[in-house]
């Protein structure tokens, strides 16, 4: 009887260990500090979501290998959101009520927004580490971002295009969803305010595959730059534009900073300008370490700059927990918020300095890349 129970316990242990996955290596003696992560691990966005999760696991393991948070192991609980708000709401409630986490990291605008009322109500700190919708700054006292919102890179890009590249007439094409509309509007406003003229402003359906009409409409306005604020369909839009013989300068934002674009477009990608919000391995040796860890996974990750923020947001969590623990406070969402505002300035391994501002926004240098000989080459840095 006892033996069989013993065996069952033994069997269930590896599973449990898998679930909490990272950590526990060194700091077994002290109670674990837990935090929650709401990520799409299924659905159309899971390609990025799963790589975020993987990176958190790496970062948590790294922290625990170095002794954890004041000797406490850090432990992460991941729940799937499918990047859908209604699923995220339930998952957030489970993390807060069942698992009692004081802090949740998350991404994807609709998920951040859906979880915000719960965070505010239950006084649980919610950190956005990947969504860039401008509304995120106004979601309440318990929602902060450690990722620069859209205005940071789009503003820099629009100003740069007008002032440095000397482009006066811009056509703006965008995917008709949250990301596309938000980004395109900022671009239009900034470009117009700088003195340029927006000659076409067209959104296309997220499910569209034929962009001929939109592109021709843009061409009629005779632009000298076309800004495309799209997502995974971005390569197709560019391909069709080049196939139609439109040779204008193309710009995009951080979604375009993706090696897949180079292989899908080949020579057609030449001259494309995109943004990135994180330094490369050449500029920051820590990034090389992250890439090394990914080599063990056996493939190149999706959206490396985002993953740098993913890693750093884990470090932010550890520092917050460290501050709360050092000050002898109970680990609650309220104290986590207090810690975030008390620390204010974080020096982070992958993305450099982070300053939390009272308006819930952050500033970051913007790296502009241009495609040259089928490679992304650093064009300029806008600080």
């Amino acid at each position: 009887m006892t033996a069989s129970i013993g065996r069952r316990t033994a069997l269930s242990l590896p599973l449990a260990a898998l679930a909490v996955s990272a950590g526990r290596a060194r700091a077994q003696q002290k109670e674990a500090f837990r935090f929650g992560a709401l990520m799409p691990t299924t659905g159309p966005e899971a390609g990025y979501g799963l790589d975020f999760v993987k990176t958190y696991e790496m970062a948590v393991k790294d922290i625990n290998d170095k002794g954890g948070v004041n000797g406490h192991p850090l432990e992460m609980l991941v729940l799937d959101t499918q990047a859908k708000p209604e699923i995220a709401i339930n998952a957030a409630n489970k993390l807060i009520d069942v698992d009692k986490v004081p802090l949740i990291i998350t991404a994807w605008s609709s998920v951040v927004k859906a979880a915000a009322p719960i965070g505010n109500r239950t006084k649980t700190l919610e950190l956005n580490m990947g969504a860039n919708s401008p509304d995120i700054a106004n979601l309440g006292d318990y929602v902060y971002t450690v990722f620069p919102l859209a205005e940071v890179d789009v503003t820099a890009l629009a100003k740069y295009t007008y002032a440095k590249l000397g482009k006066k007439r811009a056509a703006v094409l965008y995917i008709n969803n949250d990301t596309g509309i938000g980004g395109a509007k900022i671009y239009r406003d900034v470009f117009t305010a700088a003195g340029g003229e927006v000659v076409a402003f067209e959104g296309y359906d997220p499910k569209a595959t034929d962009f001929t009409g939109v592109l021709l409409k843009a061409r009629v306005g005779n632009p000298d730059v076309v800004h495309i604020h799209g997502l995974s369909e971005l390569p197709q839009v560019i391909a069709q534009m080049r196939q139609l013989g439109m040779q204008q300068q193309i710009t995009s934002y951080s979604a375009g900073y993706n090696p897949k674009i180079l292989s899908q477009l080949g020579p057609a990608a030449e001259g494309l300008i995109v943004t990135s919000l994180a330094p490369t391995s050449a500029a920051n040796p820590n990034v090389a370490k992250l890439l090394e860890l990914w080599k063990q996974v056996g493939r190149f990750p999706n959206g490396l700059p985002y993953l740098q923020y993913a890693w750093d947001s884990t470090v932010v969590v550890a520092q917050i927990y460290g501050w709360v623990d050092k000050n002898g406070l109970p680990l609650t969402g309220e104290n986590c918020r207090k810690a975030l505002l008390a620390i204010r300035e974080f020096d982070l391994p992958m993305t450099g300095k982070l300053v939390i501002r009272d308006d819930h926004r952050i500033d970051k240098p913007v790296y502009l890349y241009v495609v040259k000989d089928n490679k992304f080459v650093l064009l300029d840095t806008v600080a």
Partner: protein
Amino acid sequence: MTDPVILLQILWTGIAMSSYFVLFTVAFALTLKVEKLWNFAQAGLMGIAFYTMFYTLNAVHWPPWLGVGAAVVLTAAVSIAVEVWAIAVLRRRHSSGLIFFIFTLIFSQLVAFVLTLMFGTEPETIFPSVMSPVRIVGGVAMSDWDLQALGVTVVLLAVLYWLIRHTRDGQFMLAVADNDKLAEIYGISAKRAYLLSGIIAAVLICAGVYLYGTRAGVTPDVPIGLVLTAVIATLVGGLGRIFSAAIAAVGLALLQSFSILFIPAKWQALLLYFVLFFALVLFPRGIPVWRIRRAKPLAPIAVAQAGD
């Protein structure tokens, strides 16, 4: 915007881009006609077809004919398996249409989850590059992909037309579509007709997915949206009229393409739904494309006359 070259360009790309839409629509309309089945499981088949081609052509670099062949075989096999082990069981039980609807939909979701587990959800294309060479004809850009798409679609539809009109199996399929009980009395096997229509649909789906996947990124969630548009075209074309559905598919694609001249692009999708809704309000039994009664009882829809 009303420059004739621009209009021609929109027309040309619109027609070329509607090719896979046409193939999916015909596949859907065929199963609907023969099996009386709103087969949303075709979304699952599309997923299987795509990832087979993606794996064999993009990852392990088989020659194209072999990869496409493998996709056809696998897709047809799954199609038959679903028919024999699930649809036939439900049919024997005289299950309600809703059960079929839910089963086929959930089946497609299951396939999407399995594919997610195997391949992730990063958008993939069948070949690493989505570019194809372009020639300018009278100011209109025509890519090799456009020509290939038109060629494949026209050939497949011609073969299907021949199959239905001039082979015994094709006639049997129509007989079963007309009245399966009566057909069985005359010794025509409904089961054989169902299987045949499933295989034809699998071929059409593979062709459509090949065209789509060489041009646009696919994730496991994409196919269900593609089926939905096929449903709309099938309906506007009129139930049970396979080739009218194909023409409706082209028409809807062109309507969307040309609407850009009058309305902002973000309203294009709305136009599609409006057409669907008002078409049904005006013609509650489907749109009478061109009803001609032929003397031959098994004559399918008159295709040539439907283009007015």
